[in-house]
């Protein structure tokens, strides 16, 4: 190879045109089509699932569905399961949010990356990978079987605790990461005017990180609302309406367990109720999800 001093030896205009037959171009077109195909396949399940839930579930909608309880008999509805899902999800949020936010505050504000903090972060990541059914098994043995909560076995609160175990790692992580986004200058400014650490966190850092934390927490609530495995032997199921405050200590119906029970049942009416419950649950979860996304974007912009 010689280094041509200048290109003035060339007389012709260079050929820069795209050559279809060139191997690299054939390969590129092939790969691009393949990636497009994969992307199409990846979006297909959502479309298919949503379409069926909308058609099969939406077609079932009527007022009685919401006013009747989940007897599973002709004329039965899903009203009590809707309330049950709200109760169990709220109970889990009441447990997981304070504990998780507190843990996240420790990691982001106090730990300074020591060995203990590394251990907690590692534990949080591992915990996030614990299968949901294991959380159910654990709560069954520790709480349901022992009747540790005022002598009650299966109960809404046991279900709430099981769900909170699954929410906890997400809440810790979002709090930790949200607080890390707050610039250190802000903390120094607060500490610099003589605020205590507690006041700095409560009045300055936490409010600044509110949106990312809220987004993550809302998403984790949406995820918990759809969980089934931890509930099937903790909250169990019930064909009755929740009965005031006592319902916290009694077995309770939830949409997700209702879907599981009725989907696998041989009675067509119960199958249909499962579709209707799916419609309500999916709608609920998608709305929360889109709300959380909007919240996140609202903060970013």
């Amino acid at each position, binding site marked *: 190879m010689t280094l041509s001093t200048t290109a003035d030896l060339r007389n012709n205009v260079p050929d820069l045109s795209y050559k279809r037959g060139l191997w*690299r*171009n054939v*390969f*590129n077109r092939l*790969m*691009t089509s393949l*990636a497009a195909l*994969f*992307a199409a396949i*990846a*979006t297909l399940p*959502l*479309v*298919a*699932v949503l379409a069926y839930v909308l058609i*099969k579930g939406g077609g079932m909608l009527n007022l009685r569905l919401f006013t009747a309880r989940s007897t599973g008999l002709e004329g039965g509805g899903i009203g009590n399961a809707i309330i049950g899902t709200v109760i169990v999800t709220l109970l889990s949020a009441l447990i997981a949010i304070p504990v998780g936010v*507190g*843990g996240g505050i420790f*990691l982001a504000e*106090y*730990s300074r990356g020591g060995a203990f*903090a590394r251990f*907690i972060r590692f*534990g*949080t990541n*591992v*915990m996030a*990978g*614990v*299968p949901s059914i*294991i959380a159910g*098994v*654990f709560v*069954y*043995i*520790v709480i349901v079987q022992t009747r540790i909560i005022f002598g009650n076995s299966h109960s809404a609160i046991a279900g709430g605790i099981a769900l909170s*175990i699954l929410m*906890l*790692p997400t809440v*810790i992580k979002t709090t930790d990461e949200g607080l890390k986004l707050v610039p250190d200058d802000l903390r120094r400014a607060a500490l610099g005017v003589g605020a*205590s*650490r*507690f006041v700095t*966190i409560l009045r300055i850092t936490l409010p600044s990180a509110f949106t990312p934390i809220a987004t993550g927490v809302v998403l984790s609530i*949406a*995820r918990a*609302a*759809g*969980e*089934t*495995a931890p509930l099937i*032997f903790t909250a169990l199921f019930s064909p009755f309406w929740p009965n005031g405050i006592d319902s916290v200590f009694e077995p309770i119906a939830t949409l997700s367990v209702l*879907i*599981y029970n009725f989907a*696998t049942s041989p009675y067509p009416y119960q199958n249909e109720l499962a*579709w209707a419950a*799916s419609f309500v*649950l*999916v709608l609920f*979860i998608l709305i929360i999800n889109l709300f959380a996304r909007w919240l996140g974007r609202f903060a970013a912009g």
Partner: protein
Amino acid sequence: MDRYVSLVGPNRMVRPLELYRLRRRPPTEKTVDAGFRVLAVVLASVVAVLLLAILIVVFWGSLQSMGRYGWSFLVTSNWNPVKDEYGAFTAIYGTLVTSLLALLIAVPLGVGTAIFITENIIPLKIRSLIGLMVELLAAIPSVVLGLWAIFVMEPFIKPFLEFLHTTLGWLPLFSTNPMGPGIAPAVLILVVMILPIITAISRDSLNQVPLKLRQAAYGVGTTRWGAIFNVMLPAAISGIAGGVMLALGRAMGETMAVTMIIGNSNTFSWSLLAPGNTISAMLANQFGEADGSQVSSLMYAAFVLMILTLAVNVLAQWLVKRLSLKY
């Protein structure tokens, strides 16, 4: 007093100290401050304590069965509550084979999708929409996917599975007649469930590759896919590998959709078209009504599942650290 009197001249300002009541911190404030710190430490410890408690409880519960069957529990496949004999091979095999096969299908799909939505092949708006759809798919509850799998997907794929059986039936993997629920439909529903994880993490990893590396590749005259294979994917590999391992962990622990479609059979078969079981499906089905030594055997199986998912998750974290390229 003089110490707080500032400057001299026209800016001279006298601050009457008595207005600053809190110049000296009251003991309550110190207590609150210290108390909050302790509270934060305690709350942070909860997650670690819980994790250990789960491990201990599950291990404790499985001791009886471990003592009785030892390692043979893992390799024998008779699960007979009537005769009180337990071996979890069918479920362990089912867990591994469903999750690994699902991974095999979902990795190319997910990484391909991630590439498609991070490259400027089509307008940004459509790409964002695809990304959003894949993320929303992750939000669909497992139990709803299970319902869909039973009533929509399984009837839909049955002809294909029958075709597999008639043409490739001589292979042990397709040796049985598909009869509805089975390992193959469970694999497909797992693909649907882990696809969003792989896609989202791969997309984030690809997006994090600095623009300057992409420019470097194009600058020496690579084609789009030359840049993807030689620069983008190698630079993003640690994140992608971590995401794949997380997805594997999720697939192994996934319960509801699999329980609803796998057939819950404890009879072992090599065939992917036959009904099977996974550890989590077995737990979901039997744990609520089990008693005696069945509980302990289920706990033993749960312990195996814990160890498998823990190993995969720890490996995922290690991979992310180990493989990250310096750039």
